[in-house]
């Protein structure tokens, strides 16, 4: 157990720096533009670090790190996708266009961008409603991720930890807006880089060098739980058998769900609206790539190797040592394998990871509630800093209540669900908005509805992980899921995204056909 005085001292320094940066943000936040899109003057390093820190949360480190201890090194495909899609495609092919188009239209939020680009209040309203409903779930998972580590380390009541987390983060988001969020995110991102790099060194020191550690991990294959072996997992240094349940879960939910979902996340998109110019985005790519590699890559390397350490130290694999709760694997490993000083420091890193993502989500939900929805309800078009602040406070309260009522083993699942929904509902419409010459609303509306509805139906009635937990299929049809394996392991993204793309294509074809007589007459 870490020394309480040491931890309190580290936390005090971290919180003082966080609140100071929040104060700087508050001082620079004069109007609604500053609050919502950071006055469009954010520098490249802050943009990249803040983007990365907002994307990589405790969920990536604790949740997905724990999952990689269960499913093995195959999660490195998620790291590759995070860099290829989450940085290269997101910044180069989406980011610059989002910034330029957003600036031309005067957009201040993600729903606002869609609404103005398509000239459609429905697109703004519908995407805002989706965000308001789905984002608190993701938020709650992030809060739980941070609270878990405090719980394991100090035995502090989980609800007290949740409240403390939310209160501190809320204090600078509500007053400092996006400037405070991005400044604190950048500092927290640097902490994450340092902490994870040291964690990698500690891990290799504990289990041997890379070759020795992975050889030992391969040697543990016979100890993979029978349930996972039956699902197709044969080794922690190999991909599961192609098409098996384990393969479908790893590839469709974990790798694709998160790796593709990153492209259309509202809290990340808004960062491009805050960039000073295209040069800033170009430079940010050089920082974003290494950040993703050093954060997710280390988490997904350390995760599987915890099996070696637990086996050598306790004669158990990681999942067994954590009592079957994979969210506890990384905290337990660090508490057992790392020096006390690092445990205290890493706790701060996890707080930083949680706070950076939380603050971004709080801000995104708040501006959506306080601008996009408020605009429709009250009929007021101009963004107001005060209303956005009130919206942020209200959405924080909802997220905290949800975090207190959600199960603990939900971090990675909720993250994948949120990102999957974003990809299904928003990605085709956003791509069309950015690359269509004169994008029209009808195909976008069709795509948003088809993507969102098909994702929801597959989640509620087929995908076992959620369908069983929700119990709606059981209540209506007397069966936990309407289809059997292997469909129960196919992530809703694999159904929802093609459905949304198909709907977009149908919408475009219908519109083209409707336009054809007019064009013929004109000719």
């Amino acid at each position, binding site marked *: 157990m870490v020394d309480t005085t040491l931890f309190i001292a580290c936390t005090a320094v971290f919180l003082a720096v966080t609140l100071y940066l929040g104060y700087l943000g508050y001082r620079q936040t004069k109007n609604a533009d500053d609050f919502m899109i950071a006055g469009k003057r954010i520098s490249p390093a802050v943009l990249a670090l803040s983007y990365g820190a907002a994307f990589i949360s405790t969920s990536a480190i604790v949740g997905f790190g724990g999952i990689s201890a269960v499913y093995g*090194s*195959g999660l*490195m*495909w998620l*790291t*590759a996708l995070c*860099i*290829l899609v989450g*940085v*290269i495609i997101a910044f*180069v092919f989406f980011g*610059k266009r989002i910034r330029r188009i957003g600036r031309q239209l005067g957009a201040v939020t993600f729903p606002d961008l869609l609404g103005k680009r398509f000239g459609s209040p429905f697109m703004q309203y519908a995407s805002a409603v989706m965000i308001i409903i789905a984002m608190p779930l993701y938020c709650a998972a992030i809060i739980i991720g941070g609270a878990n580590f405090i719980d394991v380390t100090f035995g502090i009541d989980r609800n007290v930890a949740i409240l403390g987390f939310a209160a501190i983060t809320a204090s600078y988001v509500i007053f400092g807006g996006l400037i405070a969020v991005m400044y604190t995110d950048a500092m927290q991102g640097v902490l994450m880089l340092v902490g994870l790099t040291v964690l990698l060194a500690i891990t290799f020191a504990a289990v041997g060098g*890379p*070759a*020795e*550690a*992975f*050889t*030992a*991990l*391969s040697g543990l294959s016979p100890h993979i739980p029978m349930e996972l072996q039956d699902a197709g997992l044969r*080794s922690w*240094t*190999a*991909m599961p058998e192609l098409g098996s349940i384990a393969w479908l879960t790893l590839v469709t939910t974990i790798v694709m769900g998160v790796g593709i979902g990153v492209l259309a996340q509202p809290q990340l998109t808004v960062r491009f609206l805050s960039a000073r*110019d*295209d*040069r800033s985005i*170009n*430079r*940010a*790519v*050089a*920082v*974003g*790539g*290494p950040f*993703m*590699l050093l954060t997710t*890559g280390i988490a997904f390397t350390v995760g599987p190797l915890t099996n070696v350490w637990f086996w050598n130290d306790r004669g158990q694999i990681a999942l067994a040592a954590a009592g079957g709760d994979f969210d506890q694997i990384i905290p337990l490993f660090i508490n057992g394998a790392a020096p006390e000083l690092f445990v205290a420091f890493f706790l701060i890193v996890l707080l930083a990871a949680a706070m950076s993502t939380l603050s971004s989500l709080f801000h995104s939900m708040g501006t959506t509630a306080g601008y996009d929805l408020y605009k429709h309800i009250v009929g007021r078009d101009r963004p107001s800093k005060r209303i956005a602040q009130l919206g942020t406070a209200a959405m924080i309260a909802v997220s905290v209540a949800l975090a207190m009522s959600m199960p603990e083993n939900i971090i990675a699942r909720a993250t994948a669900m949120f990102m999957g929904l974003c990809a299904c509902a928003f990605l085709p419409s956003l791509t069309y908005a950015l690359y269509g010459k004169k994008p029209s609303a009808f195909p976008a509306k069709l795509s948003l509805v088809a993507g969102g509805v098909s994702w929801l139906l597959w989640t509620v009635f087929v995908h076992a992980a959620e369908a069983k937990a929700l119990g709606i299929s059981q209540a209506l049809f007397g069966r936990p899921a309407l289809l059997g394996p292997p469909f129960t392991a196919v992530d809703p993204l694999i159904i929802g995204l093609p459905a949304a793309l198909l709907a977009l294509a149908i919408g475009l074809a219908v519109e083209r056909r409707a336009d054809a007589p007019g064009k013929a007459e004109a000719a």
Partner: protein
Amino acid sequence: MFGIEDPQIVLAYALAIGSTIVCMIYGWLKRNEAD
């Protein structure tokens, strides 16, 4: 390689590191380009 049984895992590592290098080169080459 490095005790890793499956070349697909080695490929994932190689792709992640290669993409990172591409990011750094792109950022450097385009650092003053406004597009």
